């Protein structure tokens, strides 16, 4: 059975993100979409307020909404975002959206760096991140320029303006937008709750709880629009389907676990004491040989895991043996060239 009336509830930005996507997806389907929102109270764990960060996946979300680069560029303070900073028990962690350096012959860059480091050749791994270098120039960078670069990037956007923009899109798609919760619509087939209540997320009866708070800038929004998409594909058209509900809850739970792993990596004082199996495995394998085992349904990218492990002071005891295939002279030349390229980004020369 399909829903006939859906309510999306939450603080305005969260409700706007979920509501715009649901409204767009349900436009023309003989289905009422109501968005009930509370005033903006943006002060998240990630320290976001006037502006906030959306991760690179957001471009797909915008594509589905039909939101183009020119419209985003017109928002005040809109800027590209190539890396974010998150607090950790070992100080601030820079988390880039693109890989460090460049892989060579299928061998990840940090494995080559580890070998070079063992031979006393190279400075800090972070100095090889084009994303971190670009982020230093991002505030003043024209957003349109970022779209021409080949590196993945997210967006820094003005919170209130962006929420307004998405609400307008939702209205255009036929949604009814209400200021305040539960005042005008009393019943619905499905309620999509975007309030991060701390309670278990998932689909229970006619309520989908789809929000999660994160201390890592952008992570909670990514989680929110992923779940919004799932609400459309699994929830709205299959209200009484146990298999759909089970799948929704399975995916939601997996992603929450991966986010919790990432938070624990950043925040736990003594990582040796972690009881999270997937995180423990990441730490053990990374320390043993530099590889980072990825699970299904990861939210953070491998480069972010690497940066977070690095920020917590974890280092591989050895490099991938295949990295030894390169002579030290070749390795030095390769790294010097990369370093020059990152230096050029830092100085702004590469962007002119």
């Amino acid at each position, binding site marked *: 059975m*399909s829903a006939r009336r859906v309510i999306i509830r939450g603080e305005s930005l969260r409700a706007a993100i979920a509501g715009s996507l649901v409204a767009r*997806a*349900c*436009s*023309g*389907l003989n289905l009422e979409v109501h968005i009930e929102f509370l005033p903006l109270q943006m002060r998240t764990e990630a320290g976001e307020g006037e502006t906030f960060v959306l991760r690179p996946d957001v471009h797909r979300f915008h594509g*589905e909404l039909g939101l183009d680069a020119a419209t985003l560029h017109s928002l005040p303070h809109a800027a590209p975002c190539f890396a974010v900073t998150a607090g950790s028990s070992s100080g601030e962690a820079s988390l880039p959206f693109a890989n460090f350096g460049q892989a060579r012959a*299928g061998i990840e860059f940090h494995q080559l760096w580890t070998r070079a480091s063992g031979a006393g050749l190279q400075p800090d791994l972070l100095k090889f991140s084009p994303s971190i270098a670009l982020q230093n120039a991002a505030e003043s960078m024209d957003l349109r320029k970022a779209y021409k670069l080949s590196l993945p990037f997210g967006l820094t956007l003005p919170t209130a303006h962006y929420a307004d923009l998405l609400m307008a899109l939702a209205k255009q798609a036929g949604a009814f937008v209400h200021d305040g919760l539960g005042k005008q619509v009393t019943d619905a087939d499905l309620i999509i709750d975007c309030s991060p209540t701390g309670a278990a997320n998932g689909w229970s009866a006619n309520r989908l709880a789809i929000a999660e708070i994160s201390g890592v800038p952008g992570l909670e929004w990514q989680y929110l629009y992923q779940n919004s*998409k799932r609400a*459309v*594909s*699994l929830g*709205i*058209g*299959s209200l009484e*389907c*146990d*298999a*759909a509900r*089970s*799948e929704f809850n*399975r995916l939601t739970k997996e992603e929450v676990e991966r986010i919790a792993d990432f938070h624990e990596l950043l925040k736990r004082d003594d990582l040796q004491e972690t009881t999270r199996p997937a995180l423990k*495995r990441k730490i*053990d*394998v990374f*320390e*043993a*040989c530099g*590889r980072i*085992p*990825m*699970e*299904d*349904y*990861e939210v953070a990218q491998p480069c972010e895991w690497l940066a977070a492990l690095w920020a917590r002071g974890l280092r591989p005891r*050895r490099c*991938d*043996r*295949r990295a*030894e*295939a390169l002579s030290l002279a070749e390795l030095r030349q390769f790294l010097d060239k990369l370093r020059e390229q990152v230096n050029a980004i830092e100085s702004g020369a590469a962007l002119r």
Partner: protein
Amino acid sequence: MRTIDSACGNRVIVRHTGSEILNSGAGPKRIENVVVVGGGTAGWMTAAGLASMLGSTGLSVTLVESEAIGIVGVGEATLPHIKFFNDTIGVDEAEFMRATNATFKLGIEFVNWGRKGDSYIHPFGEFGLPNEGVAFHQYWRKFADAPGVGPLEDYSLPVVACRGAKFQPPSDDPRSVLSTYRYAYQFDALKYAPFMRTHAEARGVSRVEGKVVDVVLDGESGDIGSITLEDGQSISGDLFIDCTGFFGLLIEQALQTGYDEWTKWLPCDRAVAVPCEHMGPLLPYTRATAEEAGWRWRIPLQHRTGNGHVYSSAFISDDDAQETLVRNLEGPALADPRLLRFVTGKRRKLWNRNCVAVGLSGGFLEPLESTSIYLIQEGITKLLELFPVDAENNVEREEYNRRMDLEFDRIRDFLILHYHATERDDSEFWNYMRTMNVPDTLKERMELFAATGHVSSYDHGLFLIPSWIAVLIGQRRLPDAYDLRVNQASDSDVAAQLSGLRRHMAKAVASMSGHADYLTKNAMIERAL
């Protein structure tokens, strides 16, 4: 000391010694010597892979094999991943095609699986194009019965090419419909191992001829210290790769690792194989035809056709199975039928102590989806990624086993799907397969698809969404519903788009070369077809 019977009938002794073999110096010893035991497809692929990627780091690779012991010659039909492996170790495609009498492969045709008389192709590519984030098959589902829409396979370029016996490599232009597929090979497995051998030896692999009669285990660690050959030669190593086939000379006979059987879900336990003369057009696909108690394969090579019958001995006799195979040959047989016995399942640890089982020694999932060589490749790739520096490698070993277990489990579910998603009730075998309890992971997937048309996805594993769609829909498991967003587009618009796409596919395939012509024009044949 234990004595065990080897695969070829001789006796192999397992001896336990003191710990001096492995720990003669202070601190863990760097792994410098790898010994590969067994020289079939798995053995030579492993040796070539290790030597290509790690030879220049000082790693010495020795392969021990005996000409007196035959090889199973697994995997005449492959998956697209093999091209990556061949490319990585520097294999020239045309040279490889000539040397192994190979043909190209765009998918697998399944005949009589959903019902007798049915046929569908599981292609190495997508079905149609998604629209507004909604998968193509959701649109197709709504209009499946409408006039002019046709079967889902008409919207898959590799399937249309298979049906027309066409082939050309995919386009690099992502906007082209000719970029929506990949390809694999069908080759003579008995020629692939020697071909790999030339590559491996050119990269420094040492070959030792001889039968293994003795496996010496370190008394303290339990690791393998050395193997002894029939002529008395002792070969020691830091890491041993067991490529001895089903017998598992090192991983099982010496290390007693254990084996998890999956026969309750995959009860086929025998195969009889025979090549025959090639007849008819050279098809760019493998065929799997369901029979009374199993299925028959047909693999077209340049110089012959490979045939086999995989069956469950609980439901059909060897004689009847062989008769079924021979009766269905398309041309005169070129050899006597050969019988293989196997038990579907997986070794409990594919990497145990200092021994890694690659190929049939690690496990066997029947060849229905051509996964044997893929699993060899994955074993090699993951070993390279986690290659240990010394004997202290518990973490690497556990991670290797975890990842390989995941591969096996997910392939297992996909194979079971073929047998379980059937309407056939014409034999005891099919009644059992249709009504058996399947793993929960598979049951949930099937229920989700039936109710919503959505395929539960994962990030790691061989068979992704298009593969599941091919088999589910190919075997008449049409979902009860489709994504509600399909209704956003008008029926006439969708019908026009479907019709246009179908024509576009047909036109693109019409411009492709015939399969045999492509091989000829590109100097990939050993002799004129």
